[in-house]
């Protein structure tokens, strides 16, 4: 899946595009935005990995993936409330709530694959795309019926402490997000690049019928990709709800779209690309939101944060459709 391609040119360009030096009122503010961006970017990266894992093997964009993140967030939220009421310590609640959310999301992932994608495995490519959007709408509506339209407050499970590093404030939850996401992604890269199962995943991504000749059941590999992607989605949902302190039935749409942008930015189908794309998009967004007021003389405020992700998406699709780490030639045999 990974082709050695060094995106130094692109990275240099991006650095040059960062807000001009004169606007940077202080290095502290700049670094603060970078830290916020890396936090957000870690979450994008976790979700982007789910898109890219499935795309790498099936050539399918699982547009329902954002809703799986939402289900993960709301399940984790409900589980946290329930477990806190049972007087468990918050750290234990955090872990248990994640495990529950992961179990629910993994089951959901399997059901989505079985019902919406497997029957259309050999159908024209547009068909599974439409069912993906259908599943997405169904999940959103179900979540609305189950949890209502209101925003739910995520219980505070981690201490509200913040550390000052230089002039940068980093909260415990930010450290947990960056740390947990980093470790999870490292583990996934080891799984895919260093283990027998990962080898089978890469082989199936290249050619399911040839991999079958070696004894690989493509369906099991596809289910595995959905399982891993869904567990990562549950983690991302739990982390994003903890970060913002809220969750609601409609949160998956924008998050999913941005993570998809991150996957495309990094090169969809490429795991390292999803990580790079996610982190980069998070930083671009945070810096954009932080400086848009200064750049436009106060006309546009940070509520325009979402605009940057889609500028990035359009830019990548126009200038480098294969993404930063993507392959330049058609990738599927």
């Amino acid at each position, binding site marked *: *899946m*990974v*082709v050695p391609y060094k995106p130094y040119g692109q990275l240099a360009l991006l650095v040059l595009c960062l807000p001009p030096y004169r606007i940077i009122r202080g290095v502290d503010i700049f670094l603060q935005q970078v830290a916020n961006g890396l936090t957000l970017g870690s979450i994008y990266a976790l979700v982007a990995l789910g898109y890219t894992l499935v795309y790498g093997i099936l050539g399918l964009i699982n547009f329902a993936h954002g809703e799986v993140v939402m289900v993960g967030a709301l399940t984790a939220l409900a589980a946290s409330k329930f477990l806190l009421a049972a007087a468990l310590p918050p750290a234990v609640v955090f872990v248990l709530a994640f495990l529950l959310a992961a179990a629910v999301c993994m089951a959901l992932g399997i059901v989505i694959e079985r019902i919406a994608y497997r029957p259309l495995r050999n159908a024209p490519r547009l068909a599974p795309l439409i069912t993906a959007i259908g599943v997405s709408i169904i999940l959103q509506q179900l979540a609305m019926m189950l949890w209502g339209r209101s925003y739910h407050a995520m219980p505070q499970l981690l201490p509200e402490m913040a550390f000052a590093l230089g002039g940068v404030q980093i909260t415990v939850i930010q450290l947990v997000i960056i740390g947990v996401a980093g470790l999870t992604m490292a583990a996934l890269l080891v799984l895919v690049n260093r283990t*027998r199962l990962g*080898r*089978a995943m*890469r*082989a199936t991504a*290249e*050619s399911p*019928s*040839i*991999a*079958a*000749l*070696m*004894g*690989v*059941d*493509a369906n099991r590999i596809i289910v595995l990709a959905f399982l891993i992607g869904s567990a990562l989605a549950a983690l991302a949902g739990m982390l994003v709800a903890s970060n913002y302190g809220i969750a609601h039935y409609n949160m998956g749409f924008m998050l999913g779209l941005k993570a998809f942008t991150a996957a495309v930015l990094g090169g969809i189908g490429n795991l390292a690309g999803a990580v790079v794309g996610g982190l980069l998009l998070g930083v671009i967004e945070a810096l954009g939101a932080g400086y848009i007021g200064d750049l436009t003389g106060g006309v546009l405020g940070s509520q325009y944060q979402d605009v940057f992700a889609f500028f990035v998406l359009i830019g990548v699709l126009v200038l480098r459709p294969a993404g930063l780490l993507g392959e330049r030639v058609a990738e599927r*045999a």
Partner: protein
Amino acid sequence: MAAATDHQPLLNVANLQVRYGSIMAVKDISFCVTAGELVCLIGANGAGKTSTLKALARMIPAGGEIHYAGQRIDGLPAYALISQGLALVPEGRGVFSRLTVAENLAMGAYHRHRPDERAAVQEDEARMYVLFPRLAERRRQLAGTLSGGEQQMLAIGRALMGKPQLLLLDEPSMGLAPLLVQTVFDAIRSVAQSGVTILLVEQNARLALTVCSRGYVMESGAITLTDSAENLLADPRVRAAYLGE
């Protein structure tokens, strides 16, 4: 892995049919391969040879009955065959271009994952590098960067890593320089001598008949001739149609 008895063929194909839409690519053919044999299926481009092999490997749907090692396998999924000892080296080699040479070989041994098999798998990998020294030099290289001949060696090596009892080879000489064809066929001969039964599909009839003991001639989806390699090489029809005489 049940061994076939002396009287029973290892592979017995009865009334095999393959159709693509309304076109019959393979028309009701029957043939067999006995354990230890090196048998070839020769014929022109489009005669249905590759379809036959693909049907045997369960890569495409087919009618008829396929018995292998005394067991009917035409209901099994493709991925279940290698653990029964049946391996296919597909047309166009089919190496995993984004995996390294060593990883491709490891994929060949995918189904041999029990811890007590680890040493044997490592031994087999070392044996592949002896059989194909070119691969040893390139073991850390991505398979997509190999030449056609090297990819063919890798494809054969990868199939052998699965410890097959029956090896199906699809056009191993295709697109290779004459010198490499020699290397590849030397390897095929030594694999056969090591006790692996081989069904070889080839367009290059002369080459195939010189390594095989027996052959089937396929023409527009049907088997039209079958005999010992010696007799086929001498047969005027074969000489005219396939040996360019």
